[in-house]
């Protein structure tokens, strides 16, 4: 029996508490314990980016994050991404540019792209390619994904 730890944190803007086995990843907690299955399990070792979430405003691989380390922090998943300034434009870009095929990489890509444009609203296409170097896509060949993020960059800012 592994040790269980009580934690509380903000998940998509809402206060949550959970009791998690100490060696569990944030990804396992989100998907299996809390039912937030938008975040995907690809490799489990930091290589594919399907599990990307935002923690205190930075993008992280949730498969490498200990769930206990979410305690007291601000966690945002694809389900709650709309609160981020650029999220809507990024999602629209993915739809308009046909940047989704099987869709498995999409939640991680969209979270990472949103983080990228939050950090650097004027990212060049080269910076966009570098910004998603931790996200693998086995279907699209990336061209449409880069176009989608560039379209989000170029979209007029959302009405305040």
């Amino acid at each position, binding site marked *: *029996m592994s040790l269980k*730890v009580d934690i509380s944190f903000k998940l998509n803007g809402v206060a949550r508490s959970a009791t998690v086995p100490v060696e569990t990843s944030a990804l396992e907690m989100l998907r299996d314990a809390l039912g937030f299955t938008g975040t995907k399990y690809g490799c489990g070792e*930091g290589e594919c980016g399907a599990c*990307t979430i935002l923690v205190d405003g*930075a993008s992280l691989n949730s498969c*490498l994050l200990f769930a206990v380390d979410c305690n007291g922090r601000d966690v945002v998943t694809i389900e709650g991404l709309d609160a981020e300034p650029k999220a809507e434009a990024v999602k629209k870009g993915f739809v308009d540019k046909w940047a989704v095929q099987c869709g498995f990489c999409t939640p991680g890509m969209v979270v990472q792209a949103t*983080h990228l444009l939050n950090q650097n609203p004027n990212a060049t296409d080269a910076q966009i390619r570098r*910004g998603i170097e*931790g996200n693998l896509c086995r279907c699209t060949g990336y061209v449409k994904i880069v176009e989608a993020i560039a379209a989000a960059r170029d979209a007029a800012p959302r009405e305040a």
Partner: protein
Amino acid sequence: MTIERYVAPETLEEAAAILSQGGATILAGGTDLMPQVHSGKLKFKSVLMNIRRVGELQGISMQGGMIRIGALATVTDLLTSNVVREKLPALTEAADQFASDQIRNAATVGGSLCNASPAGDVAPPLLVYNAEVELVCKPDSGMKVRTLPLAEFFTGPGRTRMEPNELLAAVRVPVPKAGYVARFVKFGTRPALDIATISIAIGGVKKGRALHEVRVALGAVAPVPLRAALTEAVLEGKALDAGLIDQVAAAARDEIKPISDVRASAWYRQELVHNIVKRMLTDVAQG
């Protein structure tokens, strides 16, 4: 062993006190720890201590003639720090070539050094900048700090001179002299998310056509990231012309005894070191 207690101290003194009570597995960014736990390479001790909330371990600052990089500074912090960019550009370069944005946001400098991978990217530039590590413990009522040159810190893959009751608090780097030039090159099969096949850092004070107070550090060619003393001696103080550059490149190739593994054969690593040292010094000579 299974974990019996989880702690997340907020001060360095608390953290050191917990370590002095016996074994604890230290958790920083978790990017090495989590995969090592899953692959069975690492067994937890009875206490898991998350140090991420310890304020004294954060941040990058100038203190007198030293740049202090807190153990919890992330690779993203290195990449975006103006002090690092201005004074330690080879470290910025290493941070830029490190993994992916998501990993850089989590991975810490302390975690990289304590993980002691021969292929770790932050060690070679820090060796060239003559960094030292600050190790802290609390053997009795008082805190004890000792510093150790980074060049003496590593003892083997995954092994260091850090005692079980110690933790790495910071890396301290003397501000390089005027005229100091340094370069870092990592060679991998693709730019992102690749472990170095070899990496090289070279630094020295450029006077006229020569480099003085030269340091050369190599990654992924030995059980630890190491200084190449013989290569340094060939390079030291002599005019950087084509003949010298050839001699230095040959010295570097002959000084190392790398292994063959999944990433490259020993022969290939030696050739890489030769060719990349040559390219780096040609660039320094022209710059």
